[in-house]
């Protein structure tokens, strides 16, 4: 680990300048070709599709329809509602995930017994496909046999709760599952970050008589800031675009209360066959999330 963490200058060897470009291309080409074909091309195509009326139908013709899709979307209450749910979901999961993971990472960074066990456990959700995580939590939250309700029953608390079936509580419940599912990446990243905070900094602060809390706030946290920015940004994007977990867990129900925008757009395309309109939803999602990230990342850069 120490070897990896050592900062390394990445300057280029000063030789053979002329052949360098060619070598670079040669090495990058195997990656470049498939990327161009299978991601740049579909992406450009997808963005353009958002300006057409493409829809299902035998020999259905597709025409460019300018901003028609967007004017229709502007008045589509269900979409904006879903977008709002997507934002609540993404921000809540990211924030809770961050707090929970930071706490865990701090604990794992201490010299505690059973640390190895906690580390292993912290990684397990990552080894599980989201589909399985969803299935597992469905079993956990089953109103009749799930251990959650049964535990409540033993404690004499209300126990006939249909966690995933009641519109008032489904979204919070799904968010908790989302936090559980996404903790490993965040925890490990933060742990790696904590371990690279130079111990001398903390020691110096300790000698100055700073309390644990002050040391955390004034030494550890600032040192972690770049990593925090990176991982929360990534988490936010991943969560906003996540699909499988909620698709299996609730499929957007009950009453559309957990209809993330990715599910909404999926339905628009693959249930109702409105491909162009669905792509337009994708475009709106990219633009709004992109704008938010731009603002957030710029603010973070400034603080540095």
């Amino acid at each position, binding site marked *: 680990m*120490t*070897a990896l963490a050592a900062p390394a200058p990445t300057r280029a060897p000063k030789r053979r300048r002329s052949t360098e470009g060619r070598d670079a291309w040669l090495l990058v080409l195997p990656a470049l070709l498939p990327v161009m074909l299978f991601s740049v091309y579909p992406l450009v195509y997808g963005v353009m599709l958002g300006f057409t009326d493409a829809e*299902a*139908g*035998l*020999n*259905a013709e597709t025409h460019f329809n300018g901003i028609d899709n967007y004017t229709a979307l502007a008045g589509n*209450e*269900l979409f904006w509602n879903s977008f709002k749910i997507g934002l609540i979901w993404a921000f809540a999961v990211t924030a809770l995930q961050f707090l929970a993971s930071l706490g865990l990472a701090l604990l794992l960074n201490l010299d505690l017994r059973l640390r190895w066990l906690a580390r292993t456990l912290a990684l397990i959700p990552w080894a599980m496909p989201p589909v399985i995580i969803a299935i597992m939590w469905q079993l956990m939250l*089953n*109103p*009749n046999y799930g251990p959650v309700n049964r535990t409540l029953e033993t404690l004499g608390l209300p126990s*006939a709760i*249909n966690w995933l*079936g*009641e*519109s*008032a509580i489904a979204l919070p419940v799904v968010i908790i599952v989302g936090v559980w599912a996404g903790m490993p990446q965040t925890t490990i990243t933060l742990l790696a970050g904590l371990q690279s905070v130079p111990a001398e900094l903390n020691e110096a602060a300790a000698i100055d008589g700073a309390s644990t809390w002050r040391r955390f706030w004034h030494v550890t946290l600032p040192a972690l800031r770049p990593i925090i920015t990176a991982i929360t940004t990534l988490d936010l994007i991943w969560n906003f675009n996540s699909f499988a977990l909620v698709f299996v867990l609730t499929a957007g*129900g*009950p*009453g*559309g209360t957990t209809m993330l925008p990715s599910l909404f757009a999926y*339905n628009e*395309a*693959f*249930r*109702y*066959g409105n*491909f162009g309109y669905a792509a337009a939803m994708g475009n709106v999602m990219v633009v709004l999330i992109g704008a938010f990230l731009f603002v957030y990342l710029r603010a973070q850069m400034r603080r540095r």
Partner: protein
Amino acid sequence: MEREIEMRTRTSASVAAVAGVLALPLALTACSAFGVGDDDEGGAVTLTFQSLAYQDTTIAATQDIVDAWNEANPDVQVELVQGSWDNVHDQLVTQFQGGTAPDVIHDESADIMGFAEQGYLADLEPYLSEDTKSAVSEDIWGTVTASDGAIVAAPTLLQSYVVFANTDAFADAGVEIPTGASLTWDDFQALASQLGGDGGFGVGWGLQQPTATVMNLSLGFDGTYFDGDQITVGENELAVPERIHAMAYEDASLDPVSLTQSGSDVLPGFFDGKYAMYVAGNYIAQQITESAPEGFNWAVLPPLAGTAGATQAANPQTMSVAAESEHVEESAAFIDFFMQAEHQAALAQGDWLIPSSTPARELVAEQTAGENGWDAILASGEGLSAAPFQSVVNYPQWKDQYATPALQQYFANEITLEELQTQLTDGWNELG
């Protein structure tokens, strides 16, 4: 530094190990493992038939029919592919769009009429035999006829919603099991009140996906919802939701939690004696016979009747042919074979569903001798008739985006009947 080197060598070893593990299956598998290039066919025509049968009994019955066909028709072989009701719609959208749809498509009337309007389904009118055509009533043919008059499917099995009764619970409460041609909603509600109490409920009803049930049962009150492309949500349409709501929240004879669950979630409560009655599609009878605890006694009550009688909407399962299929004629011939009375009767008994074909229905009555609730189930089939919602193109989207959420909220007691009415109507108009 020493630790580092050791780490490095150990890592190299594990890299080598991982690489070895990775390489092995690659070396062992030919290209065909990736599913590429196994398209070669002999001289015979091969039809793919995507079946949605899911109960073991029906899967076996379907396989038998296919085997019989393959034996009789060496030149036209049918290959059975298993699909699933859960994602059949999404899957068909993708398959039609990609030109990879199976030749013979199993689905249900309410789901396929949109595909018919999009031109994806072949007109079977020229191909189906007279026997098949005359076996099914005009009314039911209406549920698979597109707006241009094309017959886009053959209707196979029908389901109706029936009330299952735990006969021991009735006996314990000293309540007599109703008989007769039908059971009115009022009587049903009264029964439920008598049977509830003591931590139990008269009725458990898994209505997590409420729309189809409500639409189908509403026909018993003349609640048709649609007239052409116009929606009407009036007293008749709201009668069924209102009564269910009243049973759950006014006389507490129906467990409100069950309304938020799926039918299969509620079934164990029926077995445990928590619910004296259980409302579900008649196909659940198969699961009851399979998984009820020993000594569990049950019956099927007479069909529920509203002000317009014991009428329910017929939403038959369907067999269609993809318009882009290269073998429409052969596929239709297979469907014709599939529709024969003996085959339909076997399938019907596997799923405890009602054949839309009259000869097949008679055959079922004969073969089962009306045992195990079959008389009541077949009787409920008499009241099945076509409903306008099936032929409305945007019905699936309205159902998903407006009707289901609105009904769910109403059944969770979160909105009023007026709000339900508004949401159903406005939602439809939103889709325009």
